[in-house]
């Protein structure tokens, strides 16, 4: 497994698709702060500070930016083995297919952590550039930890989508859009079972995010239900992993050629 992980990291060298995450997470604090600015002055939060920005970033990351980026990157990591015709080389080593997928998930989860750290950095930079107050080492530690934890739990929630859409050739872009939509849906669950058990809500709750203050939740969320929601995601991920098997077309480049003819873009 170690050699699979090492290989997966090596494969990321010079990968332009990582820019999707880098750009998206840089946009998050800008968009969140910008949305304050476009409100009528009387609607704006007069006490908007670093803590508010961090909370907005946690919300924005989980609702939009991370689901979109992680499913796109994770799905592409799987998809590229078919489009680059490398699956046949891996399977004849032989590398176990579920282990290979597992390695890709671990790398994607590591990326979610790195994106979390990066998100903290760009949030601090953005807040400093616009002159927000309320920054301290305690705020950085508490809020920064929450950003990173939420990035990780959001990554966990994205795993089934990565596995499903990564294995359907060329579908990872569609999968990332669908996941973006699913992430966006947390906006609608303000009470009841789904407030806690809906996986994206669970990701926030388990990261210690205050759903009542920032989501306008009408009741306190249940950590137990959130754990159950996350456990369901992990069970589903494991089931997909174990049931996955390589396409019989692995290494068959004929279909790739057809797609190329349609002018399909391929990330490098």
């Amino acid at each position: 497994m170690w050699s699979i992980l090492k290989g997966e990291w090596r494969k990321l060298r010079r990968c332009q698709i990582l820019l999707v995450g880098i750009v998206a997470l840089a946009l998050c604090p800008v968009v969140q702060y910008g949305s304050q600015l476009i409100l009528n002055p009387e609607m704006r939060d007069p006490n908007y500070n670093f803590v508010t920005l961090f909370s907005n970033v946690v919300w924005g990351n989980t609702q939009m930016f991370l689901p979109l980026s992680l499913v796109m990157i994770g799905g592409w990591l799987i998809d590229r083995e078919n489009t680059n015709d490398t699956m046949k080389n891996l399977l004849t080593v032989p590398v176990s297919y579920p282990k290979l997928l597992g390695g890709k998930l671990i790398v994607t989860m590591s990326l979610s952590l790195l994106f979390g750290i990066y998100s903290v950095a760009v949030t601090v930079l953005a807040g400093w550039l616009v002159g927000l107050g309320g920054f301290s080492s305690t705020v950085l530690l508490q809020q920064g930890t929450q950003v990173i934890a939420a990035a990780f739990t959001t990554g966990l929630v994205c795993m089934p989508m990565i596995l499903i859409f990564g294995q359907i050739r060329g579908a990872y872009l569609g999968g990332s859009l669908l996941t973006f939509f699913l992430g966006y849906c947390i906006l609608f669950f303000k009470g009841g079972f789904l407030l806690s058990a809906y996986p994206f809500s669970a990701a926030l709750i388990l990261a210690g995010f205050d759903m009542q203050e920032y989501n306008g939740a009408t009741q306190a969320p249940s950590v137990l239900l959130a754990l159950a929601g996350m456990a369901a995601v992990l069970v589903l991920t494991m089931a997909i992993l174990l049931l996955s098997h390589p396409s019989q077309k692995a290494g068959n480049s004929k279909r790739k050629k057809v797609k190329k003819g349609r002018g399909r873009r391929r990330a490098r």
Partner: protein
Amino acid sequence: MSDYVIETRGLTKQYGAQTSVSDLSIHVRQGRIYGLLGRNGAGKTTTMRMLLGLTDPSSGTVSLFGKPLRGNEKKILPRIGSLIESPGFYPNLTGTENLRIFADLRGLKSPKYIKSALEVVNLPYRDKKLFSQYSLGMKQRLAIALAIMHNPELLILDEPINGLDPIGIAEVRDFIRELCDATGKTILISSHILSEIALLADDVGIIDHGVLVEEESLEELEAKNGKYFRFTVSNAAAAGRLLYERLGIHDMTVDSANELTVRDLHLDTAQAISLFVGAGLTVSDAHLYEDTLEDYFKKVTGGEGIA
């Protein structure tokens, strides 16, 4: 234990109603180069994919090194190096970086494996050029380097000279021959280029429309190939009569007024020519002809020849 490194029994692959490979039984002997010859779409690649477990057969069995492939993949596959269809690598990495990934997966810690594999195919070690910038020939060479990097006992090479220039083709041919002769490796090579198989293979399997129509050693095939004498004389019928009456030759045909074909190889041509000249016939040509592998291919596939 079986004498064969590769043995298939009744191997069949169907895609829906279409049969890609039908009841294929091939036998590859140790230390030999087996050439699988067939037109494009004859089923060569599908066969090789089934040999590597990349495609499940619809029916039939594959045995490698005397063991069934199914259930023994972890033991068998590391003993094989393969090149199937087009070279598949990561375009954002250099050749060396690509090989390093597979070297790690195969547990090859020392860089010497990568270095020597690249050396064999004349590619530079630690070159900065990315795989996406490689020419087709360089990509093919890298794929061969990947196949041989771990020093496998068996090589399965699907059209390995695709994309190579004439010098590259000759180099790869010599290299494959040397691998077999010097290190005793067994090599299964497929091609639609008949001359390559004729130059390289010890044993030949001819596959047509998914069916193995012939499997022989090259010597046996050559022996099977028709040999005959052809004379161009002023009167073929008279020449034929002379051969029959004076030399007792029966197996011959008068092709035209001036052409006579003799299939009895015991004929002493010098004696025949002096006989013709003595009888006042003019002899303008006398040749021993031999059918080529292409002629044989046409004969057994019942169709046109290939490149």
